[in-house]
């Protein structure tokens, strides 16, 4: 399938996901009523349900899904490792620790923005720590050292997190676990605006770095020989991809698998050229998350399944299938 054809197909799926997410939800609302609500006709309540609950939610799903998928592709190129994904450098551990600290300290009751702010801060702290640890060992930020630092810092944060939970009461533990599993329930227009503000410019920046990322993926020495300013690319790409991931996690908790399997799936169809891989992964990730969220919201309505569970349940078998095909192709 050509790149263009895949891009169009995924765009169509994303649009279908977007519409499905607006027309379907835990509360059964008939199509004609939804259309009325979209147009501003009909009851004010339903208008608000559609415009202030469903629409921002599907848009957030598109943004976060897209951001995670693209960040995943970027980390895979930077770390030259197909198993890399957005949380690999400790981001999920840091974000979760930030969020849970705030929950345990009861700060969320003071201000509901404390939670996303703390998780964002935790994510950034984690990644700064990873770079600090890695550069102390090796100033060149060798990929192997970075990955190791990521594992270590991630483990450290998980330990702190576990300690906090061990000393917390049952409600905090429950809230923490739910948050960690990820959810799009917090989607308001304000959240969409903030996440959008992070996602749009960073997406453009990463698209501009696409060729450089192709080079980084085959080795930093070779990348240099082919004209890449390796240090600059690393700083910008790591920084930007981390920010997009951190913003996503702050808004929705830790949603796994999107950043790992979506880029691989796209690669299988159109190859590894980041100039196509990055934007198409964005669209694919957005479509995937929108549809996953639809399932999360409606499968056992009114109970909402944690979306991280859906992405994993779908993601794991998908990933295994892809892995076999990729390995087969690589072995030739």
């Amino acid at each position, binding site marked *: 399938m050509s790149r263009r054809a895949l891009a169009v197909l995924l765009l169509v799926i994303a649009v279908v996901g977007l519409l499905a997410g607006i027309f379907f939800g835990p*509360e059964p609302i008939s199509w004609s009523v939804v259309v009325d609500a979209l147009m501003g006709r009909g009851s004010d309540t339903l208008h608000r349900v559609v415009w*202030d609950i469903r629409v921002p939610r599907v848009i957030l799903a598109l943004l976060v899904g897209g951001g995670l998928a693209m960040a995943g592709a970027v980390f895979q190129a930077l770390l030259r490792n197909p198993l890399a994904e957005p949380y690999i450098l400790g981001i999920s551990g840091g974000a979760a620790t930030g969020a849970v600290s705030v929950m345990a300290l009861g700060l969320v009751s003071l201000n509901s923005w404390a939670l996303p702010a703390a998780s964002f801060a935790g994510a950034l702290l984690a990644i700064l720590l990873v770079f600090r640890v890695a550069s102390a060992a090796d100033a060149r930020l060798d990929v192997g050292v970075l990955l190791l630092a990521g594992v270590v810092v991630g483990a450290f944060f998980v330990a702190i997190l576990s300690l906090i939970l061990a000393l917390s009461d049952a409600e905090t533990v429950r809230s923490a676990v739910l948050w960690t599993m990820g959810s799009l329930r917090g989607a308001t227009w304000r959240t969409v605006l903030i996440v959008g503000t992070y996602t749009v410019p960073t997406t453009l920046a990463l698209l501009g770095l696409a060729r450089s990322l192709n080079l980084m993926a085959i080795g930093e020495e070779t990348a240099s020989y082919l004209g890449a300013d390796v240090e600059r690319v690393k700083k910008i790409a790591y920084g930007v991809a981390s920010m997009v991931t951190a913003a996503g996690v702050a808004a929705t908790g830790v949603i796994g698998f999107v950043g790992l399997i979506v880029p691989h799936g796209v690669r299988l169809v159109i190859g590894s050229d980041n100039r196509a891989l990055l934007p198409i992964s964005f669209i694919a990730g957005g479509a995937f998350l929108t549809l996953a969220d639809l399932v999360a919201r409606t499968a056992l*309505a009114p109970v909402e399944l944690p979306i991280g569970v859906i992405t994993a349940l779908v993601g794991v078998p998908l990933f295994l299938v892809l892995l076999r095909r990729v390995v087969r192709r690589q072995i030739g």
Partner: protein
Amino acid sequence: MRRNLLGLSAALVALACSGEAPDPQVEAAESVQPFHGFPVVVLDAAGAEHRFEQPPSKIISLVPSATETLLALGVGPKLVARTDFDTAAAVAHLPSVGGGLDPSLEVIVVHEPDLVIHFHGPNSAGTVDRFAEFGIPSLAIRPDGIDDVRMIMRLLGRVTGKEALADSLVGTIDATLLRVAEAVRGRPPVRVAFLLGGAAPYAAGPGSYVHQLLTLAGGQNVFADLGQFYAQVSLESLVVREIDLLLLPEGAEPPPGVHLPLRFVPESIQFPGPRLGEATLALAEILHPEAFR
């Protein structure tokens, strides 16, 4: 399922209580002036002020014990939805909004409530903000202990225009507690522990509701030094601390290898609510059976 039976008995008790309380004079007065006592300004558990010009007509309670209280106050007909954890038969016909701590916003909004009652927890500020966005007043309650139960009953009574009824319900509870206190007065406290079963048991500590009930019922919680609502205790401590009677909720598994006198009590005693009086009485009857012969 046990829970449903419990719910049924709870509903019956609630109905019975509500049956004996209303004062015909107050009722007559209410029907003449339906908004008597309004507007009402109350402060909820989060410290937020809420003003009601008239009693809310569409209520959603996200806290099962508050639902019970509302039913006891006779405002059942005003409830428009319930949670999956509301086992009272009186609300079984209502649509569910999911769990009480993470309900579906969409389903709630669609029912256009003019009052939502939610549990004030570590993550509830976000929920409150979202309700506020939709112009839905959200009352935070925190039923942790006995005093909270009284406060919440009165709060809900004020907000729904059933203050007198609420007061009398509190009075009934207090009367039962008084009866229990008299019955166990002077008797040596029974050394008791309440455990959530399993191989690594959690015991009720001094902050918990169960602890309060046990104390009132003439028991002495051997884990009064726990420093928390519930905490994990070692199997060793169960042996070392002299326990006269071990209490577990019905259906729980006793901790392995522990040979102590054991009684199962209804699960509901863990949850602060309007049945506080009966729960204390039931416990007292277990701890000091001879006082009730």
